[in-house]
């Protein structure tokens, strides 16, 4: 039985070191080609006609004028007369033309009669939502919440929440598709599921799965919104066929991208929490609601991290799912967690303020409620407090941290979070060639996690050869199938599969060279570009010479990681973040000073790409905390800001200074790679909201923390009422 386990720390040459992304130079130089860059010979352009209303029935469609326009090749109806469009932006028709401008002009020539119906597009004001759109879900309780609140020494009440935001992928959803013959399709998509969506396309087109050839070298953002072939993918293949199989490029326009290509559900909650004088958390009660579109949204797991038997001993939670005439939600980088963290860690911060306790002290006091990761959180709180110099910089709520002036108040806020992760099902082929070169092929994708770099690291580490000797091939569904990248499971899956494949391939090579060295294969190891005898390292053969023994036959071995296998990868991580902000109390503008993240992800494969993954999450976190909101118009039912002008994202000067610390060593490494893409996205909203409350002495209830809301909260505070009734 081969020994696959990860090498011990002192033996690691690449794993856990600070290694630059191997495809970084391609990306920064613009040489990396994305799906959106695919321009095949004879390319035609597809554009979608989107519903202008949030709830309407199509009575008739007349495409004749569009069909007659010069340059138009195909006009195809996607949803015809009788169809009910339940959100603005829904797809009605596709036009294919010789250029984008002609296709767009032709869309406007399609004449449609609608029967309009009433719509609901906003949900924060729950009382204003018609009863038919509200579905209360089952109440959940633990312990005796009423009794616990009666016995609590201190209680705090508050309102917390966030509006819908979108994924806002910089590369919009879409693909280029051509028919290479009557039955075979070539697709260049932007997808999180290289080995997955081709099968879905084949099924929709009623062709054999093997007839879909899918290629994607790089992806310009997915964040959970690019798991499916989507209707526009299937329609793109159909219109390509109608255009004699010619390549058709169909990517969503920015307004459609922000309207229909995925969103993070809203979540609002009225919360009451109770504690003993010494800070022991005893009771939680919440009434929450939110929407993920027409289908509403499932009940969230409140209180976050504390809804288990080991968590808050007494709680009661209620939830109302709201159906709105907005495009369906999609998984957004740690589904539900950022919203849950905001509501929970916000309420706990307000409770700590009511107790006149330092929130870090409050969390430490209750750390055992956060089982099974109490020890991890405890270590991370220490580290985060050290990075932020918490003792010197934190002041009780409303007093203003050092550096505060008459008009600018500084504050610090903390939050903790968790995530599952764990390796997904992955496969790869590892090949050792007689000339000493090595390659690995896997039908996976690099969503930003550093897939290519991690595969390179694992193979080179295992075979004891320089990283440059290894070639990594991903992004084709002709390679061994791997799961879609979701749930922070890619590195766990592909590193485990590639470790197994590399170990098995190496063992085959050992078998070939063992006789030369006069030992048994199991007495060999690979290191420093050599294969050597473990007991006598001076007895060795150079890697290339060893490979030459293969003759003309390379070794190719399938490496496999089955989902749920915990041998090399495990599940469950914790993280702590501290935000340091300044709030201009005359304008309500919040600026980031510093932002600290302490993160666990099990065994770190590449420290540099791991940190950069956390940086990315923090940037996204600042953005959704301060700026992002999909603004829906009650009157027209449309998104008012489907552009990068008013759908606001942070710029480089808006994010402040970041510091990331990855937890490593004992208690972390032995768990194997777990997952990192999502967890650090969970705490920013809570940490930043808490920092603002700490700075100005009052909770700004909902994200984003825009000037209007900050000023309104300050005005309420002056008026004597406060969000957190203390």
């Amino acid at each position, binding site marked *: 039985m081969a020994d696959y386990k990860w090498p011990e720390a002192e033996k690691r040459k690449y794993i856990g070191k600070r290694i630059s992304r191997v495809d970084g130079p391609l990306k920064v130089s613009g040489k990396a080609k994305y799906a959106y860059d695919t321009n095949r010979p004879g390319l035609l352009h597809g554009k979608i006609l989107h519903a202008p209303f949030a709830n309407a029935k199509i009575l008739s469609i007349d495409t004749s004028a569009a069909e007659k326009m010069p340059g138009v090749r195909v006009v195809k109806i996607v949803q015809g007369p009788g169809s009910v469009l339940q959100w603005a932006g829904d797809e009605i028709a596709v036009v294919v033309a010789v250029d984008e401008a002609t296709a767009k002009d032709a869309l406007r020539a399609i004449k449609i009669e609608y029967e309009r119906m009433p719509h609901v597009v906003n949900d924060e004001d729950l009382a204003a939502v018609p009863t038919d759109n509200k579905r209360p879900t089952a109440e959940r309780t633990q312990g005796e919440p009423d009794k616990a609140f009666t016995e609590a020494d201190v209680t705090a009440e508050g309102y917390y929440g966030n509006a819908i935001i979108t994924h806002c992928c910089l590369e919009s959803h879409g693909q280029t598709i051509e028919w290479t013959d009557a039955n075979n399709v070539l697709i260049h998509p932007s997808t999180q599921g290289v080995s997955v969506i081709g099968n879905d396309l084949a099924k929709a087109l009623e062709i054999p799965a093997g007839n879909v050839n899918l290629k994607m070298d790089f992806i310009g953002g997915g964040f959970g919104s690019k798991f499916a072939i989507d209707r526009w993918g299937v329609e793109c293949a159909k219109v390509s066929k109608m255009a004699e199989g010619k390549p058709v490029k169909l990517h969503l326009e920015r307004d459609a991208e922000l309207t229909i290509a995925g969103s993070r559900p809203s979540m609002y909650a009225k919360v009451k929490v109770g504690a003993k004088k010494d800070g022991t958390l005893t009771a939680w009660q919440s009434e929450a609601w939110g929407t993920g579109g027409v289908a509403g949204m499932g009940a969230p797991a409140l209180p976050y991290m504390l809804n288990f038997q080991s968590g808050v001993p007494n709680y009661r939670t209620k939830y109302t799912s709201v159906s709105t005439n907005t495009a369906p939600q999609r998984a957004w980088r740690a589904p539900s967690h950022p919203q849950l963290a905001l509501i929970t860690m916000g309420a706990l911060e307000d409770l700590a303020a009511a107790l006149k306790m330092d929130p870090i002290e409050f969390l430490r006091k209750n750390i055992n409620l956060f089982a099974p990761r109490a020890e991890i959180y405890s270590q991370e709180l220490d580290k985060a407090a050290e990075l932020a110099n918490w003792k010197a910089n934190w002041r009780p709520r409303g007093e203003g941290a050092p550096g505060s002036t008459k008009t600018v108040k500084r504050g610090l806020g903390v939050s903790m979070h968790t995530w599952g992760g764990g390796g997904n099902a992955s496969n790869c082929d590892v090949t050792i060639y007689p000339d000493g070169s090595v390659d690995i092929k896997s039908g996976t994708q690099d969503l930003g996690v550093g897939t290519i770099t991690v595969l390179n690291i694992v193979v080179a580490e295992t075979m004891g050869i320089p990283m440059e000797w290894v070639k990594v091939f991903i992004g084709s569904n002709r390679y061994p199938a791997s799961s879609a990248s979701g749930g922070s499971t890619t590195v766990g899956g592909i590193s485990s599969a590639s470790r197994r494949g590399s170990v098995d391939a190496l063992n085959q090579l050992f078998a070939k060279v063992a006789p030369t060295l006069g030992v048994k294969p199991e007495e060999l190891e690979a290191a420093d570009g050599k294969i050597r005898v473990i007991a006598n390292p001076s007895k060795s053969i150079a890697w290339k010479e060893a490979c030459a023994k293969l003759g003309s036959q390379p070794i190719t071995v399938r490496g496999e990681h089955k989902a749920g296998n915990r041998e090399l990868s495990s599940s469950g991580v914790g993280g702590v973040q501290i935000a340091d902000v300044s709030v201009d109390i005359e*304008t309500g503008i919040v600026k980031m000073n510093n932002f600290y993240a302490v993160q666990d992800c099990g065994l770190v494969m590449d420290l540099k790409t791991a940190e950069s993954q956390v940086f990315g999450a923090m940037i996204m976190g600042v953005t959704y905390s301060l700026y992002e909101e999909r603004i829906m118009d009650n009157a*027209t039912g449309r998104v008012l800001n489907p552009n990068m002008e008013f759908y606001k994202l942070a710029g480089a000067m808006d994010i402040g200074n970041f510091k990331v610390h990855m937890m490593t060593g004992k208690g972390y490494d032995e768990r194997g790679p777990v997952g990192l893409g999502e967890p650090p996205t969970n705490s920013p909203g809570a940490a930043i909201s808490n920092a603002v409350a700490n700075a100005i002495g009052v909770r700004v209830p909902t994200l984003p923390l825009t000037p209007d809301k900050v*000023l309104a909260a300050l005005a309420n505070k002056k008026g004597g009422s406060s969000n957190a009734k203390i």
Partner: protein
Amino acid sequence: MQKFEYANATTIQQAVALLGNTWGEAEVLAGGTDLLALMKDYVVAPKRLVNIKDIKELKGITMTANGLRLGSLVTFEEVLDNAAIKRSYPAIWQAVAGVTSPQIRNMGTVGGDLCQRPRCWYYRAGYGILAKDENGKALVPDGDNRYHAILGNEGEAKYVNPSSLAPALISLMAKIKVAGPKGSREIAADQFFVTPKSDNEREYALAPNEIVTDILIPSASGVKTATYEVRQREVLDWPLATASVALKLDGKTVKSAKIALGHVAPVPVDSDAAAKALVGKAVTEDTAEAAGAAAVANARALSRNAYKIQLAKVAVKRAILQAAG
């Protein structure tokens, strides 16, 4: 984008001759940072584009003892790079520095800044400058008006004027020189912007066949000026309120003041009330605050933009304090 004819003018006379007699027939192309997006979104659909970028007379920055002349094609980046403007006309330089996108600054022109169309999201979604739905119902009053006007919003127009330069130009009593088929005329900066009553009118006092040729700013010798923008983000972001001030001081006492606000009304607001509140007084936190309060005394919030009254007030206060230094 609707197909259009592209005409390349090399003289002012050619340019104005190529423009039509009614709005919408032809559009003037300078930096194109606004126009092209409007055309791609079918918000405007001209039959002809008149490119003026090759007209030499519209270029160049000239500063003399009498004042500053900006050709209408001067880019924001040229202004930003001009040390003399930074020194002598801080209000203008600061307004330009507030456009934090190098791409926009490199392409966008000072003439275009004055003639760009409002950013009202209903207008940009095709509901017209007065933002009415297909039944003629006004969308702004009951809609999401968080970025709309708090002053001058009694009529149908409720968008805000988007110009970055306008408040500074008004505070400095600049003149906008325009040319048409019959020759040139000068318009005082505070008269340049108008509030349209229908979709067939524009937000500025040009005839359809006139173009902006020069911005003429009198000498600011002895004048203390500043622009303060309240912007949520450092990255390119529309101000929520802007104020520009030009102060003449006699010792510590304000002898005269000109104070203008941007992004708060359909036109930039020349606030006599704010100026009056300041004249004859020394500049202090309190007098600056009082001038800010005077500037928004007649403000009227829509359903969601009351916060902008506070922001406008703060912008005036901070611009005054900044100018007085």
